[in-house]
């Protein structure tokens, strides 16, 4: 299976807190796909775990890598843009 990779930015003024983490987990679970997130160059965490996402302690303005395991490029782009939306706060 192919992996679609993208970069998103945390724009939420309070950083990557519980609420966006919950929204992303729900989206990931509904998609049925494996999605990973994390700082560029570091080990990524599974985005179906709110605690792992919160443990990234992402701050406002930071960039995160998103990897979506799928052959459906359009679906992956849709998910990535939803994730970016959640990170706007």
């Amino acid at each position, binding site marked *: 299976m192919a992996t679609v990779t993208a970069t998103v930015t945390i724009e939420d*003024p*309070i*950083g990557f*807190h*519980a*609420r966006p983490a*919950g929204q992303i*987990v*729900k989206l990931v679970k509904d998609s049925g796909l494996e999605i990973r997130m994390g700082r560029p160059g570091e080990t990524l*965490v*599974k985005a*179906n*775990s*709110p*605690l*792992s996402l*919160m*443990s990234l*302690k992402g*701050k*406002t*303005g*930071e960039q995160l890598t998103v990897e979506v395991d799928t052959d459906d490029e359009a679906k992956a782009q849709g998910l990535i843009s939803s994730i970016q939306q959640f990170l706007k706060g």
Partner: protein
Amino acid sequence: MLASGAVLTGLGVGLSAISGEVFRVKPHQPLPVPAKHSGDKQSEIDKLKTAISNVSQELQQLAKKAGETSAEIFEALEMIVQDESLFDAAITEIETGWDAPTAFVNAVETFAELLSGDPTFEERLADIRDLAKRVAANIHGISLGLNLPEEGRYVIVGEDFSPADTAQFTKAVVGVITIQGGPTSHTAIICRSKSIPAVVSCAGAAELVDGVQVLVDPVGDRVVVEGKEADATQAISFVAKSAEPIIPVRANIGSLEDSIAAATTAAEGVGLFRTELLYLQSTAKPSKEKQIASYAEILKAAPEGPIVVRTIDAGSDKPVPFLDMPKEENPALGVRGFRLVGPHRDFIVDQLESLEEARKLSGREVWVMAPMIALTSEAIEFAELARKAGNFKVGIMVETPSIIYEIPNLKGVVDFISVGTNDLSQYLFASDRLHPSLGTLLNPWQPALIRALSVIAKECEAVSIYSGVCGESASDPAFAVVLAGMGFDSVSSSRSQVGAVRTALSSLDKSQAHDIYQAVLAAKTADEAKSIALAKLSLLAG
């Protein structure tokens, strides 16, 4: 057994009193100590799965009961209890030999440690740890429910209540008393929002037993055994007798939203603009251009009158991410406030220079002050930086006991001082301002604090330094009257209290306020001080 009429003091939440029958909430049965399992890993994993699914259902029930605002909290908690990475971590713990409850608690703790130290998650941590307890209790068959009555009129009494506890409050709960917990505890916040009269931090309530009739009297900060509602302390309704208060009432702000909202009140300028609130989430040092733009916006929006800006007030317990703040053993006593001038002089200078540009752009009158000043030499250093950077009135916060004794030395150094009563109490009484069981020591009506404040007002007057108070205490209308009576030149209140404080300060003249202050000096306890002030004020209002 407490006698009829016995008075238990605490801190009141709310303005109306209520009487009801005591219902003691038993402390939860303690959870068994961490233990190893007998070797059947699969059965432990199954037990854990069942418990997680039971707790998820409990949380759904709680969400239904809780209503909109708290429902979101329980939905988030449900998602966390079902977290797959958490489950995997628990399985690893089971594989090393721990039984299911211990494994889950350990797994939660691993994540809790990762999240600790970040202010964004600090308040979530207690909830997440509470989840681990719920799962462990479920496996052991221990009930964490409060089993509150559904009918009747009960005053519930307990140590303190968690979000999961308060969500179980039934309509039979008409009043709440907690033995621990302060005025900013979860219990206090929920009771305030649901308008349930409460008295928190009430140590004497440990003696209350089921079935006793009590009066919960929040205005009087007390519980009266077998008291009647007719005995309740009345909140004073002040009637303004003049258009202007005897001293200006300013507003406290920390953001553009606050500044805009403060301008809709009758506040005369801003008595405290907390600049650090703009930066608690910034990972990169804000450029001067960015600072100028945000300060100018806030200054322009502020209510008419001078604007007192405090330079960055951060410490290792309230860290600003872009300033390097190593962990300290006692952050309240560490490198905080103006002490940051050592490692971060550039940022403080940047702030002052940006404020000068913003002052010019907005055309407003700006006063600047530094927090956490303990020595005259520090005041001199700040004053030099501030006067070099711009055209401001220059002042300092009075929060440390040491600077009180140096006020005569500040003549000609600063134009004004502003007292932060929360920190002054913390340092004067050597009591952590966030400690759940030290509420009594932090009560602003403590005679020692009142005397310290009066010394500050007098010493400032003697050397012609303008004096103000911007702590929480200045948001209490009755206390504001005492402050005006001792000679302070202005007070600054939280936005929601500006109107009430202004009305109180418009209901009397300066000599009446001075008489009330003089009378309060006779008090030997905080309760006595408050009662004296309220009695005098009721006479004036009546």
